[in-house]
């Protein structure tokens, strides 16, 4: 028994009498404080940097960031096969999307409209 009021063989008798936690507990408490600091720092970075539109696209993209793989955390989303355009897009489609099509709508574009405004035509569609 560690940290007990009763000293034990091979235990922390003196430390217990002084009311001090065992060494392992103090180490874990210290690790917890560092973990809290990391959480705080991450929150600050999220707020200050990830909402910054000037941040590099490859960093904003997250999963493609070259330095990220060392991180264990996030389970990547599956890369599903696009299901094709919905019927409502049938009259507004292209054979292929323009290569220079921006990934986000330009400023002033209505927020209640989908982006991009067109999609790939289904086979056989005009």
């Amino acid at each position, binding site marked *: *028994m*560690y*940290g*007990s*009021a009763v000293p*034990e*063989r*091979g*235990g922390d008798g003196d430390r217990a009498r002084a009311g001090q936690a065992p060494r*392992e*507990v103090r*180490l*874990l*408490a*210290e*690790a*917890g*404080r*560092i*973990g*809290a*600091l*990391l*959480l705080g720092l*991450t929150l600050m970075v*999220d707020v200050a*940097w*990830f909402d910054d539109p000037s941040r*590099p696209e*490859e*960093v*904003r*993209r*997250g*999963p493609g*960031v*070259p*330095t*990220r*793989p*060392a*991180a*264990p*955390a*996030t*389970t990547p*989303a*599956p*890369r*599903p*096969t*696009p*299901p094709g355009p*919905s019927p*409502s897009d049938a009259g507004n489609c292209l054979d292929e999307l323009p290569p220079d099509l921006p*990934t986000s709508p330009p400023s002033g574009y209505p*927020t*209640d409209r989908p*982006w991009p405004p067109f*999609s790939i035509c289904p086979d056989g569609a005009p």
Partner: protein
Amino acid sequence: MTAADRSSRGTRPGDLVDRLGDPGRAWFVARAFLILYGVELWLNAVRNRPPGGDGGPALLILAPGYGVHRVTFWAFVACVPAVVLTKLVARRSGRANRWRWAAVALALLPFALPSLDALATNPLWVLACVPTTGFALWTVHRSQSYVRVPPPVLLAAFAWGLLPAFGFAAATGVLGRLTALATRRSAEPLGADPVSAAADIAGDVQHLMAWHSGIGEELAKAAGILLLLRYAGRHVHDAVSGLAVGAAVGLGFNLGETVLVTSQGDAAFQFYARQGVGLFAAHTAFSALVGAAAGLTRRLASERDRRTAVVGAVVAAVGANVAAGTLPPWLTHLLDLEGAGDLVRTLVLTPLWIVVVQGTVILAVLRVRRAGLRRQAAAMATEVTGEAATGRGAITEADVPLLLDPAARTRREITTLRRDGWRPFRALSRLQAAQFELATRRWLATTDPPADPPADPQAAAGTDADADADADADAEIEHLRRRVLELRGAARPASPDVAR
């Protein structure tokens, strides 16, 4: 395990795990998994309500292309009534606990599916991970210099990390990501084409997912440690044994994640990062710290110390996990290293970010392990010598120097293996393991924290339970002595001095 716990659980001498009995804690964990997954689904459905939009599934997870996650959803839907039915049968059955355990297994089954799918569809990557992960497990086992958690218990911990923990994290991770996407684009009919939208704005929610995953993954792994503490508590009795179990859970999780991520591209780099430089960091280190705290609670008398240890470890693990998903790209940007070449990123930046972001947690694991080993060494010195002094023959005076010197024991094992072969080596290993088990039972019997004071004064007056617990401990020690003597007898013909 306290003497009182041991008595109440009906553990018999020689049991590998505590007798299972009522799966109260396992059911608590399984139910928590089901509820959390259900909450994720509910959020998914609530957030995916496009104003005036139509078409597309109500739940984004049902969109085409989500493969195993759709299967997991339907397995979840099917398992809920099955679990309820099984619980009802348990109430009327004479074998109630068996049915309750069946309900636990049914409730956890959907969460094993993402892991099983990843393993089954990427057999070559699984094979590639066997040597590295196997080496890590062996290292974890051997790093316990005195008494060691039995390999079956370590493998059970590994299996928890690989199957339900990783599967649960993957299943809820995808749901959380889709919910975040729907929230981010709440003004658009995301439900009409969620897959394209997901691919388009995935980066926008990446930092949110670091939080979601960091918390979910660490709690899913910690649940397994909690269960092993309950059902194999006789082997998870201090920081060192807890650390080994936690590391095994983390290695299982890391294997599942490696296989999944390598199959999605950039495979060589992902393998290097997760099975190479990051093998003992990340999930392994985070869960090792939580496991060490869990094991330590067995040896702490003070409620405040127990709470401090567990909260500290969990906050450290979650903090490092969340930070590991966010800080490396930020640091890369901050130091203007985006233009670094592949070689620099691989050989310099990847290990550097592990050290910078996770270094404190890794260091904490090493320091807790060292402190735990020192405590074990002091206790073993007392108990091994004490057992030798009884003259019962399980541990002799000649055994003492070898048992108390880990390096000398390793040298003796290698010598035995080279000189006498595998069988004498195994006999020696089993004999020494049994001797340490005996010494550890003696240690625990004399240092068990006192049970919480009973609320009932009449119960407080009765010391029968304590006396029974003491008798159980004595019976177990006697059983272990007989076992050591049997093993000594089995080892002797192979090599006369094998035990020395």
